[in-house]
């Protein structure tokens, strides 16, 4: 009850109460007890209500409890019932609630009017989008991200491939984890990790390949550190191109040159065979050998014998690997010995370092390969595991398949059976889905930025939940021409749905204001195959609306105009959902969008796709009850059970009885995985006399991706206000550059003037520099190379040649 005479007394009491509650929560989480409740305040007659949601930021998939009061998020707590984070959050937890409340949220649809924008109604905006599509559906492209929720991505996918017969849909995840996908496909025949985060609790050795989880996935890293502080012996090895905070916590730091990982993986395999410590039984029972087919390059290569594999590896002696990678021969021997020790459990972790790589598919396959060759696979703690950077890179991009060549559930447009499945699930006329893959990200934007009369056949792009104007490589080729009046791109039209103004909205022709995170319902899928659900908790500001609604509203506008593709084979709207009386709910009207749970309808429809590749999902209502479940989720004795470890008999119900390990989606149809040999080759661009430094780009702790959310949080912006260039002290000394000096950085593609940071947070070795990409005023991607991996089509942001000098 409030104190009307001394209101400050109320404030004080309430503060004391909050402090007591905060202490109780931390104590309970630290002791592992669940016997505490989050505070329910009673101030001014309003209560604080709590509900679950996954964190908005990275791909770890931490669950938070969100406290809402008076229609506003006022508190956040780690969810003690969540297996991923067990009640803990990283420092981004301070900001996940604040990210909703930046002062410049987009609240009205905006149409370009010369150099500025004018406000228009949603009706006008939807009509404009429909006009652009209707005029030339084949020249339209949809560009999304791993921040699309599963229902949002699924709706976009169905709209494009099922409605417009157009496969030009691709996500920003092409830029961050496409090589992990092709690595899994080339190795297992099916995408996504076999293991999960439980491996971190069981491993004896954790190897981070070009990965900085202490800053990028801190909750996972603290899970390992916690084991060590309990007295457990865990060997941490950081294989990287610069020292980071992860390095500080590791017993071993192996500093390599760019592409050194290819040589290191071959060096480990060489030693396993030379020392006779490879796992013969595992290899003979469960593996084949593969090498690239140079005459006919393709993802599945050509089969080779063990002897051929051994012969390929002969030259990768520790000394040769040391020369190629920069890592000492003795350290290569140490890795060989660790992998050769069957008493240890070894987990490998990686993220952008191995994925943003012009041989990304190769190095992903090779790391899986050394786990197979050594038999470090199939039991908890023995696993090669890739991490993702976005909350639904796995759930939406990889599982829903919002990629230019894919259909939901691991299907591809080029396969007639897969197209038939999708046409049946979507009740579409036969032949509706186009068999030709659409344009991947780099090709899509290159075509958009090429004049139509010069072959640039993408005319309109609709961007949702991402910021390509900052994240595409080689921006002066792939994005910036849109803003150049002399580029001949007057007929190109850019539509951007977002929550804040960004580098992409700057060049947009139409801006659509979007709802974010707990302003809408959602379902996402994290790095360990865990599907997570939440409900809308607060209203979006102004006229901001759900991305999914925007897609459905445009689809409906086209349907109302008689566009054939928006009808199913019975003539009904492709997004028709019925209420309990079997009457269609007009969800295309914003006022009616939440009359039914659109997410649930879309998820249940999508769920049908999940069985083919054994990525089975449970009914939506099961996810409402859980803090996520890892697929395949299988119904057994009336209960839905998740799967922690795939392909291993003790854990995966799809492994046939009597088999210990079964790669049941093997590309060679014999239940075996593929161990790949790939040769070391140098990066696409290497330093030379003209451009003598190697530039690596990446993220920082304070800002998530392009900083569109975190740079609007004043505290974070003050803590890390602008980008910088990390330079080795010796290089800085030679160039007479001091800390804080302005440095001109030039590549063959662009230039940048940026402040120097010597002996800063990260420490690059001599000859290399690092620039984070979060700062839209200092675009690191003006410098980067747009060379891509031949199979994943993912660019390499880690190795661009530059020259530097005092500005």
């Amino acid at each position: 009850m409030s104190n009307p005479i001394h209101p400050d007394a109320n404030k004080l009491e309430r503060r004391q109460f909050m402090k007591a509650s905060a202490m109780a929560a931390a104590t309970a989480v630290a002791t592992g007890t669940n016997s505490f409740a989050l505070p329910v305040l009673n101030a001014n007659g309003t209560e604080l209500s709590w509900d679950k949601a996954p964190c908005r930021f990275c791909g770890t998939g931490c669950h938070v409890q969100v406290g809402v009061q008076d229609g506003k998020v006022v508190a956040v707590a780690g969810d003690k019932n969540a297996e991923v984070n067990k009640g803990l959050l990283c420092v981004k937890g301070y900001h996940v609630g604040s990210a909703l409340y930046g002062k410049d949220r987009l609240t009205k649809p905006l149409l370009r009017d010369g150099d500025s924008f004018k406000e228009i109604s949603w009706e006008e905006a939807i009509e404009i989008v429909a006009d652009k599509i209707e005029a030339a559906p084949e020249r339209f492209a949809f560009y999304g991200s791993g921040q699309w929720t599963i229902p949002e991505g699924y709706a976009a996918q169905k709209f494009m491939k099922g409605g417009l017969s157009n496969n030009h849909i691709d996500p920003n995840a092409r830029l961050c984890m496409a090589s992990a996908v092709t690595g899994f496909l080339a190795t297992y025949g099916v995408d996504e990790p076999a293991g999960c985060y439980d491996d971190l609790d069981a491993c004896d050795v954790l190897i981070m390949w070009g990965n900085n989880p202490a800053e990028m996935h801190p909750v996972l890293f603290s899970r390992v550190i916690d084991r060590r502080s309990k007295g457990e012996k865990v060997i941490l090895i950081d294989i990287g191109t610069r020292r980071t905070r992860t390095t500080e916590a590791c017993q071993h730091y192996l500093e390599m040159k760019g592409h050194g990982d290819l040589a290191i993986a071959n060096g480990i395999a060489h030693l396993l065979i030379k020392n006779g410590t490879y796992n013969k039984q595992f290899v003979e029972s469960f593996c084949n050998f593969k090498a690239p087919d140079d005459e006919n390059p393709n993802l599945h290569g050509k089969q080779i014998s063990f002897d051929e594999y051994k012969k390929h590896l002969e030259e990768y002696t520790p000394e040769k690997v040391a020369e190629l990678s920069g890592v000492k021969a003795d350290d290569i021997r140490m890795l060989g010995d660790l992998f050769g020790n069957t008493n240890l459990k070894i987990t490998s972790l990686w993220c952008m370092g191995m994925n943003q790589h012009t041989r990304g598919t190769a190095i992903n396959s090779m790391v899986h390969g050394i786990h197979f060759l050594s038999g470090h696979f199939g039991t908890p703690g023995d696993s090669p595991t890739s991490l993702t950077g976005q909350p639904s890179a796995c759930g939406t991009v990889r599982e829903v398949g919002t990629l230019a060549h894919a259909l939901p559930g691991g299907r591809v447009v080029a396969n007639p059976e897969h197209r038939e499945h999708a046409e049946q699930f979507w009740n579409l006329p036969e032949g509706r889905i186009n068999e030709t893959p659409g344009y991947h990200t780099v090709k899509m934007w290159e075509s958009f930025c090429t004049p139509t009369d010069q072959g640039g056949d993408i005319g309109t792009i609709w961007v949702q939940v991402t910021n390509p104007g900052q994240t595409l490589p080689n921006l002066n080729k792939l994005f910036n021409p849109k803003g150049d009046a002399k580029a001949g791109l007057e007929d190109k039209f850019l539509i951007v749905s977002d929550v804040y103004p960004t580098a992409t909205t700057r060049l947009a022709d139409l801006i659509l204001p979007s709802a974010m995170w707990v302003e809408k319902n959602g379902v996402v899928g994290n790095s360990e195959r865990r599907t997570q659900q939440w409900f809308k908790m607060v209203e979006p500001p102004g006229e901001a609306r759900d991305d999914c609604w925007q897609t459905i509203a445009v689809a409906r506008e086209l349907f109302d105009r008689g566009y054939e593709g928006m009808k199913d084979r019975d003539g009904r709207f492709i997004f028709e959902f019925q209420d309990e009386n079997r009457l269609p709910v007009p969800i295309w009207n914003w006022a009616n969008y939440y009359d039914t749970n659109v997410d649930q309808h879309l998820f249940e429809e999508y769920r049908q796709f999940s069985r083919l590749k054994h990525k089975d999902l449970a009914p939506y209502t099961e996810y409402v009850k859980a803090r996520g479940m890892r697929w395949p989720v299988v119904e057994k004795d009336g209960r839905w059970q998740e799967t922690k470890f795939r392909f291993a008999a003790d854990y995966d119900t799809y492994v046939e009885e009597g088999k210990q390990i079964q790669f049941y989606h093997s590309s060679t149809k014999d239940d075996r995985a593929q161990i790949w040999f790939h040769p070391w080759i140098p990066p696409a661009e290497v330093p030379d006399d003209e451009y003598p430094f190697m530039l690596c780009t990446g993220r920082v702790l304070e800002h998530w991706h392009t900083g569109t959310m975190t740079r609007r949080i004043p505290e974070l912006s003050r803590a890390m206000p602008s980008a910088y260039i990390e330079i080795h002290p010796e290089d800085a000394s030679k160039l007479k550059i001091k800390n804080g000096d302005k440095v001109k950085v030039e590549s063959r593609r662009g230039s940048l003037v940026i402040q120097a940071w010597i002996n800063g947070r990260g420490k690059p070795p001599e000859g290399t520099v690092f620039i984070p990409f979060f700062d839209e005023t200092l675009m690191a991607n003006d410098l980067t190379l747009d060379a891509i991996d031949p199979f994943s089509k993912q660019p390499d942001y880690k190795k661009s040649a530059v020259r530097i000098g005092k500005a």
Partner: protein
Amino acid sequence: MISSVIATFDCDLETLERTKHQIDRNDSCESGELIENRKLPIVVEAIDNQEMETTTRWLQSLDGIEFVDVVFVSLEKN
């Protein structure tokens, strides 16, 4: 703003005691009962997120502390 964090120690008892004493002398921190000689719940009070984060980073930098995890955050400013 009020938050609570857990500092995880990985050090000898002497370092732990010395660091705990440092934390106790910081007015914006209130430490709870040390659990299993390695986990210390701490309530942090601050004017805004920046001060909160600065304090958390300070905790992270102290001798013997391996990691600081966040548990609870009230976004209301004091």
